[in-house]
């Protein structure tokens, strides 16, 4: 967290942070898959995986072993280099983007002075993986999936970026830890300081755009099985498929973490003081708070997935360009205006 003065020790701590945080994020993925399958079963009034281990808890392990031992097929006629590059290009940006997320009090893998912009930039690169994977597979369904992915991600990235800019304007910084500190106020009324309530429109746009960016239902058009078999990953097997799959879940975790940080107060809670020189206990508590919020948001993701039906592709593009981008521009304009005039544009609310 802080500089110790000796470069070697700093390097050691930086490496330790990177390993621990990245490993933790990767460990959430199998847990999330299990969680999602059980919840889906519960929502659909089924039982779900309950045979492997106590209440099916070892199911993710069994899935991983199965994927690792599957034959690694490379179909004929694929472009070998780009075919292999695809899954890596989905997975690597997703995990790299997590670098700047503060998982606890000033605790992140690396802190840049451009925090959020780094995340959006690197996170956006995963579109290349989807597009390249879809194109290289030499399969028309894969190609359509890749095309849909690139069009969809580009469209919703605009709305996502504009909603983030509105937050950066009110916060007057791009440092995520400062954004979190600004959302803190003591007592239950401190909840209203969260950007979710300060910038409700931006929060809504961000949430919807995040669903589209991570290809989750109701916006999972690049891989919708009813039309495109498996979309961009139709021709992938074994661990290459697993990398696509992991990349998607890591992207979902990263987006949720960004949402928690930007709109839900990050690692802070109004009832917990932020000390100026935190002890290990304070940091652990802040990590716990962050994880709690993250799990709630991930639950929301899964809940939506198994509740809403899929949009049609033209509907997706229409609401993206004709509703969300104008809305986010309107929000940006109102935020700028209220910044100049010094009042909150939600006039009836007294803050």
């Amino acid at each position, binding site marked *: 967290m802080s500089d110790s003065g000796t470069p070697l020790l700093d390097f050691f701590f930086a490496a330790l942070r990177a390993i621990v945080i990245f490993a933790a994020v990767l460990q959430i993925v199998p847990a999330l898959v299990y969680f999602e399958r059980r919840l889906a079963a519960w929502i659909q009034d089924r039982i779900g995986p309950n045979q492997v281990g106590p209440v099916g808890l070892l199911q993710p392990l069994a899935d991983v072993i199965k994927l690792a031992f599957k034959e690694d097929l490379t179909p004929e006629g694929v*472009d070998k280099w*780009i075919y292999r590059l695809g899954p890596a290009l989905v997975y690597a940006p997703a995990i790299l983007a997590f670098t700047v997320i503060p998982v606890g009090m000033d605790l992140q893998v690396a802190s*840049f*002075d*451009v925090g959020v*912009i*780094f995340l*959006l*930039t690197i996170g*956006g*690169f995963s*579109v*290349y993986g989807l*597009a*390249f994977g*879809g*194109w290289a597979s*030499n399969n028309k369904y894969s*190609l359509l999936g*890749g*095309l849909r992915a*690139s*069009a969809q*991600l*580009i*469209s919703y*990235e*605009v709305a996502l970026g504009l909603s983030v800019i509105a937050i950066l304007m009110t916060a007057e910084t*791009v440092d995520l830890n400062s954004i979190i500190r600004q959302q803190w106020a003591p007592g239950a009324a401190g909840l209203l300081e969260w950007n979710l309530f300060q910038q409700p429109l931006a929060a809504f746009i961000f949430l919807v755009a995040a669903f589209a960016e991570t290809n989750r239902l109701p916006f999972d058009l690049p891989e919708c099985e009813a039309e495109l078999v498996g979309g961009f990953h139709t021709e992938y097997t074994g661990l290459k498929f697993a990398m696509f799959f992991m990349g998607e879940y890591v992207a979902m975790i990263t987006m949720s973490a960004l949402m928690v940080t930007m709109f839900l107060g990050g690692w802070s809670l109004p009832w917990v003081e932020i000390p100026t020189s935190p002890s290990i206990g304070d940091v652990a508590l802040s990590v716990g708070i962050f994880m709690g919020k993250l799990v709630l948001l991930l639950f929301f993701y899964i809940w939506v997935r198994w509740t809403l039906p899929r949009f049609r*592709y*033209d509907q997706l*593009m*229409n609401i993206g*360009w004709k509703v969300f981008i104008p809305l986010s521009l309107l929000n940006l304009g109102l935020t700028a205006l209220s910044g100049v005039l010094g009042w909150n544009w939600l006039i009836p609310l007294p803050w």
Partner: protein
Amino acid sequence: MSGWLEHLVFGILATVSVLSSFLVVTRKNPIYSALFLVVMFAMVAGIFMLLDATFLGFMQLLVYAGAIMVLYLFVIMLINPRDETLPDEGGTSEKAFAAGVSLLVFALLTFGISNSDLVTEMTTPGGIPALAEVPATHGAIEAFGYELFSKHLLVFEVASILILVGIIGAVHIAMKQKPASADEEDSNEERLVTDV
């Protein structure tokens, strides 16, 4: 960053960017050209960051590599070129001509840069006065924004108007081809290519 490390990083970034630019023009398949162009943008962004222009570097990545190239790729994928369907490009004479032109441009630039007053000033000892200490905010968003909206405001606004003209023109062209009741998905895709 210490001196030799900076040189090493610059050397790697510069070499890879030159190599990938070369591959952009020599690859037969446009998908590979696009891929290497992205690599080149990333390397140039790295050089920006090496010069402490972190924000500019990330903007280079976000706008060129993250948005514009995705649209290029989108168009290339719509055409869906496969190696067997691509025509053979250029004979020996055409390649020699292209190499000649490139060498000429390279020679002109090298000559121009190495003979410019600025370089002469910088390479003679004591030619330029020692700089005051570079502020910590150098290259950060705040400094960048102040510079853009004070010194270069006019250029910035003119560029915005230029982009606006481009958008309106593109929308107009797209509208003419597709009357109100036309196929929605097509017009969406066109607007997508033009808007960003």
